[in-house]
């Protein structure tokens, strides 16, 4: 029964998206608005069927209906409800279903929001999105069908991969990543629509802004939350290992970030048209590539991938997307011709161009390191992996240049800057940064790269703070406003810009956290008897007890450690090893005590069978929490920026709300001032 509803909804979504895509492109060709309207309704229908499909699957999971293949694969009666629901994305078929549902949701949302606007572009946008939908529903109807009936019906299942039910964060970062990943289909559809209609000027750029910001916010939050998850779960005290799965989420983020910046150049200077189209195509292709990489089994072996149909399907679709897109770019090459962008070296255009080159170089670096093992195995039959040194050696200089630019860029004016203006903006930040460098050196910072990073961070922070401070100062002088009122007016006058600067500040905070935690991390291992203590760095760690326990879905062995500094103990940390019924291997859960200055991170490595000793890995990780805080600042800044774009601003009058929160007295919005 459940399988039947699943089949009907998946098959229906496939047929409806195919029909809708055809109607939409007939509408583009004939200019018939009736066709566009039908295609729009088809989009809503696809979303309805997709929701039915995913609802059926969640129901099957919760009801432990093991006659459904996906439930038989990942379900188990002993798994707690929360992990049962989120096992929706713990394995291949379910995550493709999740992909399909989200892309249907995004499609319906964009078609609804723009139902009366961008009439020239929307039929082709609808058609492209429905074509993407059709691909995923085809996967779900055929090689990745999660609703295949199972006979005989098993009494119980194995439960999801133990690593994925070990921490509640698993309910958070995969959906965020998917919302980010899949959302990149929308800007891609706008890019294709611009090419198909030949309207490659400003309209599609204006229409696409918020539709690239929204998935960008999800992707950023998802990447940071994923790093946090691996820090809290994997037990090695790190958060980023340049693992192919991590790289897969990072690659489209890089190109999407480049795109967010380069569209500003096109808005302002009507240039970089081809470049923007190529970036948006690249972003979408990289999301497909990332899904392919993580879901086809190709990472384990080139040969594993050729056993299933998923891999060839994805490669075929990626090839199709690239061929069609590039053919359209060539076809529209006359319309895409732009004026050269540069008037002067010291201008914001230069900063944007360098930023884009760096992001593309970064993308290429990560792509090369991620692809190399696969290519080497396919071509030469050798199993090889690319070590973290390659990624670090390449990415550190690029990242440092980007931090330099994210401070300098906002301070540079469009077209060309006068020497007086540059002096006014750069003098103080440069002086403060140099002073900070000297002070840090005097305080004993001898790691040159870190010292340089921190100095750059101070410089960039100073420049960005100046972008807030200088107009605030001018307003206070000209209008006699208080500090809070002046700040609110300045910020609200251009939320997109100032939100962007807040994102830059968040990136700086993250960079400082990354630099300090990777340089000054200290680690040791100790085997302790109950009652015995070990001193490490400023801490004392004492083993109190070692015990086993039982939870519905797992057994665990846990060690309680009193931790403190000097002679006194200020808390207890309980790292543990979890034993899942269907896994030979215990899965550790580290215990972390987070403080602003540093984290104390304990992993239980081993214990003696009779409980006489426990071996603990102790890691002191400075400033790690600032990586998550910085990520939060980035998300907040981006939300603030997007609050001025369309929907939110129209519906909720975001401008007034924000003003009221920051200043008690009413401020007239939109008063002109110094900027």
């Amino acid at each position, binding site marked *: 029964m459940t399988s039947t509803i699943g089949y009907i909804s998946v098959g229906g979504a496939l047929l409806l998206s195919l029909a809708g895509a055809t109607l939409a492109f007939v509408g583009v060709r004939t200019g018939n608005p009736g066709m566009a309207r039908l295609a729009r309704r088809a989009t809503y229908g696809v979303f309805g069927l997709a929701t039915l499909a995913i609802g059926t699957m969640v129901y099957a999971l919760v009801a432990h209906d093991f006659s459904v293949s996906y439930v038989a694969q990942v379900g188990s009666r002993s798994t707690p409800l929360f992990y049962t629901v989120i096992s929706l994305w713990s394995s291949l078929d379910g995550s493709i279903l999740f992909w399909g549902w989200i892309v249907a949701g995004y499609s319906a949302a964009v078609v609804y929001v723009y139902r009366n606007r961008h009439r020239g572009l929307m039929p082709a946008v609808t058609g492209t999105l429905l074509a993407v939908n059709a691909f995923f529903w085809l996967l779900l109807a055929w090689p990745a069908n999660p609703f295949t009936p199972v006979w005989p019906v098993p009494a119980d299942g194995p439960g999801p991969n133990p690593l994925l039910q070990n921490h509640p964060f698993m309910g958070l970062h995969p959906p965020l990543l998917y919302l980010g990943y899949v959302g990149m289909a929308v800007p891609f559809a706008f890019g294709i629509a611009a090419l198909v209609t030949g309207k490659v000027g400003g309209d599609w750029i204006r229409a696409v802004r918020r539709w690239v910001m929204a998935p960008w916010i999800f992707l950023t939050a998802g990447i940071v939350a994923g790093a946090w998850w691996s820090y809290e779960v994997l037990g090695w005290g790190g958060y980023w290992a340049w693992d192919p799965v991590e790289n897969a989420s990072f690659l489209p983020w890089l190109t999407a970030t480049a795109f967010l910046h380069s569209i500003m150049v096109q808005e302002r200077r009507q240039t970089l048209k081809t470049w923007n189209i190529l970036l948006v195509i690249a972003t979408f292709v990289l999301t497909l590539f990332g899904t392919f990489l993580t879901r086809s089994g190709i990472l384990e072996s080139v040969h594993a991938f050729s056993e299933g149909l998923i891999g060839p399907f994805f490669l075929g679709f990626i090839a199709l997307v690239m061929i069609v897109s590039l053919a359209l770019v060539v076809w529209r090459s006359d319309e895409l011709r732009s004026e050269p962008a540069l008037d002067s070296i010291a201008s914001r255009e230069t900063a944007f161009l360098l930023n884009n080159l760096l992001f593309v170089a970064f993308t290429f670096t990560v792509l090369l390191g991620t692809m190399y093992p696969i290519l080497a195995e396919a071509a030469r039959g*050798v199993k*090889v992996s690319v070590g973290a*040194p390659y990624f670090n050696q390449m990415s550190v200089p690029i990242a440092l240049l980007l931090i330099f630019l994210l401070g300098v860029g906002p301070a540079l004016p469009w077209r060309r800057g006068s020497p007086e203006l540059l002096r006014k903006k750069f003098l103080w930040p440069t002086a403060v940064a140099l002073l900070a460098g000297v002070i840090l050196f005097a305080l004993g910072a001898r790691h040159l790269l870190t010292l340089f990073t921190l100095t750059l961070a101070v410089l960039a922070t100073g420049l960005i703070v100046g972008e807030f401070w200088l107009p605030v100062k001018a307003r206070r002088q000209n209008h006699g406003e208080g500090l809070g009122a002046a700040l609110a007016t300045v910020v609200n006058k251009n939320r997109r810009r100032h939100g962007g600067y807040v994102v830059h500040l968040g990136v700086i905070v993250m960079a400082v956290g990354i630099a300090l935690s990777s340089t000054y991390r200290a680690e040791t291992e100790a*085997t302790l008897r109950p009652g015995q203590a070990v001193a490490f760095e400023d801490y004392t760690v004492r083993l109190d007890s*070692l*015990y086993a326990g039982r939870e519905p879905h797992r057994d665990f062995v846990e060690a309680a450690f009193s931790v403190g500094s000097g002679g006194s103990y200020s808390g207890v940390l309980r790292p543990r090893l979890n034993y899942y019924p269907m896994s030979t291997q*215990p899965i550790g859960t580290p215990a972390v005590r987070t403080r602003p200055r540093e984290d104390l991170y304990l992993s239980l490595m081993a214990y003696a*069978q009779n409980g006489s*000793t426990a071996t603990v890995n102790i890691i002191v990780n400075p400033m790690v929490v600032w990586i998550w805080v910085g990520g939060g600042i980035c998300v907040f800044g981006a939300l603030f920026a997007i609050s001025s774009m369309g929907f939110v601003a129209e519906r909720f009058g975001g401008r007034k709300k924000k003003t009221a929160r920051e200043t008690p007295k009413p401020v007239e919005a939109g008063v002109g001032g110094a900027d």
Partner: protein
Amino acid sequence: MNKKLTLAIGVLVVVVVFGYFAFGGLGRSLVYFWTPSELLAEGDAAYGTSVRLGGMVEPGSVRWDAETQDLRFRLVDEGGIVEVQSVGVPPQMFLEATEHNQPIGAVVEGSLTREGVFRATNLMVKHSEEYRAPQHAGEKDEYYRELFEDQGAGDGS
């Protein structure tokens, strides 16, 4: 025209320098994934190369000195045996399996020294993302059964 030429040369230089560092860095950071027999077949070229060596732990070969944290064992496959030495406490699962002489795979990271000993900086018990049902699932809690006696503390997780 001259301006364009300068720009083109500039871009070319940047690309070449970037490519040099990228591919050079890549070459130095490669870690080969070999089995014991593949490692031995490399001959002299194997010395000092960064390798992830994967094989089965030879039953009974494990020598673990808890005082010095010195761990020695042999990794084997069909065609070769490699002596491995590492420092640090091995993962719980490694200890459990080797204590019961159960077959277990391991992957070690490091390189082969001239003395013919593989010096490992990292030891991982072999597993894949698609995990398999264990052969010894029923016996597993044998290992930590004694620790259950302290149930009172066990509830406070």
